[in-house]
């Protein structure tokens, strides 16, 4: 692999994971915090709140996974090498 391509791939991988994790990270934190607050206010709706949290976390974490896949492919199976 050429040094320039290798360097660009490593930087791109870092950016893909880093930038891809910022948004979902903030979103997951907010969602979990609000869910705990909701459970504290309405303990009788705990199941419903946790079910909604599970679905929303699954959707949010998929965004991180996309960035992770791009980064890992760039690092370990680089198509430009």
């Amino acid at each position: 692999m050429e040094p320039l391509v290798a360097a660009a791939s490593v930087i791109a991988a870092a950016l893909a994971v880093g930038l891809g994790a910022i948004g979902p990270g903030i979103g997951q934190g907010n969602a979990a915090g609000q869910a705990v607050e909701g459970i504290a206010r309405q303990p009788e709706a705990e199941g419903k709140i946790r079910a909604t949290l599970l679905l929303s976390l699954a959707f949010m974490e998929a965004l991180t996974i996309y960035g992770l896949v791009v980064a890992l492919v760039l690092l370990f199976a680089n198509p430009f090498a």
Partner: protein
Amino acid sequence: MTNISQTNDIESCTPEVKEDSMKEFYQLRNNLLIGTILIAVVSFILVWWFYSFNTSLNYLLGACFSLVYVNMLAREVERVGTFKKRIGMTRLAIFMGLIIVATQRQQLQVIPIFLGFMTYKACILFYILPSSLLGNLNKSDKNG
């Protein structure tokens, strides 16, 4: 008055009431796991039919990790606010390991494994879309 009513609310939240309220969550978790297994089996057969047995095995490997991922996510959501104070990222380590092994091994293919891992998302979409579409239809019926 507010304090008294809050105290009554807290007192009324016995373990039995909590168990009843958690029923919906456990039902969703079981539905997601069963749905993921069903979609994985159907996709495994389709991939075997249209591509090859090797590709379908790769897909199945990803689907198995998808099941583990959903289970871990559900367990973590169950513990949020009780045992754990924050949501961890250990689930992603499993996925990272899977993709790294897939890229290093000649026998494994990255795309079928990744798509197999995404089976849980297909299951969630299949679970959510009918209820949300039917909900919108019911609302429009009531308005109209």
